[in-house]
């Protein structure tokens, strides 16, 4: 997806077609968590489609849904409806495709992505809990090597506790709002940024291109990690 270009060459760009975003998510999911398997795309569920259906290493079903700007609250509502539709059907899916390795006792999890999340969405997600829903923001970026999607998972403490949005609304500079992880705080509306008018947009904090790796990415079905098993690169390659 994205190599590691010089940070000074990065700038935000307008959103690309949704199909490109979904393709980027599939690619990114495989890189972040090799044990995550994408089972379906655009699955017709409760009245609308689920963007991606995946299963993690422990056999838990994950529904990935993407929202556009200002759709975060509706996205959460729609996702909960989809989750309610899917949950009683997992048993049937397991009958139809036992090789999927789905766990019947694991609650279906939601993974939602949007350019930003407003405070009430964060609060609602906080009430549901991390076991039910995880939130991530996405931004299209331009670098010297090409265009890509920057995805950042929201830490659990930021969901439901802080009243501020991850990206403060224009004019909102209250002290209770946490500083965004990306500096300076971009407008939630993605537009090409003119460096002359937005020089700050090129100043990016370290680690921007390395999204936070979820701890579960390297864990096996048993809960042990590759580190626990002390696997060498050579041993790992034997099973690729």
């Amino acid at each position: 997806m994205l190599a590691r270009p010089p940070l000074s060459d990065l700038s935000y760009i307008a959103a690309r077609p949704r199909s490109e975003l979904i393709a980027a998510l599939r690619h990114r999911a495989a890189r972040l968590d090799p044990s995550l398997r994408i089972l379906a795309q655009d699955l017709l569920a409760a009245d609308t489609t689920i963007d991606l259906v995946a299963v993690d290493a422990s056999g838990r079903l994950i529904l990935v849904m993407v929202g556009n700007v200002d759709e975060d609250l509706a996205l959460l509502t729609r996702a909960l409806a989809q989750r309610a539709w899917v949950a009683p059907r997992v048993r049937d899916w397991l009958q139809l495709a036992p090789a999927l390795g789905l766990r019947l006792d694991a609650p279906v999890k939601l993974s939602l992505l949007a350019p930003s999340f407003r405070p009430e969405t964060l609060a609602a997600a906080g009430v549901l809990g991390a076991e039910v829903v995880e939130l991530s923001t996405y931004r299209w970026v331009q670098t010297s090597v090409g265009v890509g999607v920057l995805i950042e998972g929201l830490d659990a403490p930021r969901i439901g506790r802080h009243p501020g949005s991850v990206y403060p609304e224009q004019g909102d500079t209250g002290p209770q709002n946490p500083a965004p992880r990306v500096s300076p705080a971009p407008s939630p509306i993605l537009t090409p940024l003119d460096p002359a008018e937005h020089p700050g947009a090129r100043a990016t904090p370290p680690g921007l291109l390395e999204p936070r790796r979820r701890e579960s990415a390297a864990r096996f079905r048993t809960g042990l990690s590759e580190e626990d098993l002390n696997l060498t690169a050579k041993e790992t390659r034997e099973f690729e």
Partner: protein
Amino acid sequence: MPSDLADVLHYFLPEVGEPGALDAAARRKRSDRRDPQEPKRIASLPLVAIPIGDQDVVRAAFAWNLAVETARLGGRAAVVAPASDDTSSLWPGHGVEPMGADVILTPAANLAALYRDALDVAVDRALDADDGGIVFVRVPPLWLRNPESGNSLLRWTLLFTSSDNRDLLETYGLAKLLCRPGSRASRLGVTIHGARRIEEAETAFHRLASCATRYLGRELTSYGLLVDDLHVYRAIVAQRPIGLVNPQSAAARSLRDVAELVLEDARKTAVV
């Protein structure tokens, strides 16, 4: 003792006569390896440790069903597992003890305590185990990170794996963990599940065995393969033994064969 899958491929052939029965050649082969002497009274049933994650319903079902099949073959069998609220869904409900194969939950919080409790069960069940038996012990994989105190429990371990690369890597990693310096692991058994073709299962086992030999200097023992089909998952959901729900299915027959292999080795291993 089976050392590769060639010993168990027969069950994919059409069966003639009693369902689940081995063909004559395979039976002779097995009987030739039996100890010709009459078995002495055993003091303790062998323990077979099976690493099973807290939410791994499928492997837990395999372990329980192996215990049931062992009992159907005439051996005494039980499953011992640490009790935990998080793992209550792994096992059938209280009172479900087909063929006398029950699940015993212990308050053990580490390998040493689990070993002591499992040994108690093994000694108790040996009293009337005229035809041998096995105590399968569910080991929380996270406890394997510090195995020193419960090494004796891990002398004989059975690992279930599919032919999926990630599963194979994990299984190899478990074998490596079990073979660390100071380990008492003397027998590492592997059963392949979910294979769609014999060749797939063969390849999977040989990949594992090859790596274990080259990197760990250890030999793996094949305990056959389990055929996953719809009956397996229906039985899991219904919490009923596969061999009783649908004994004619390929899944039940393969389970029986694996149980026979394990029981055969158990009879040679029992403490007298």
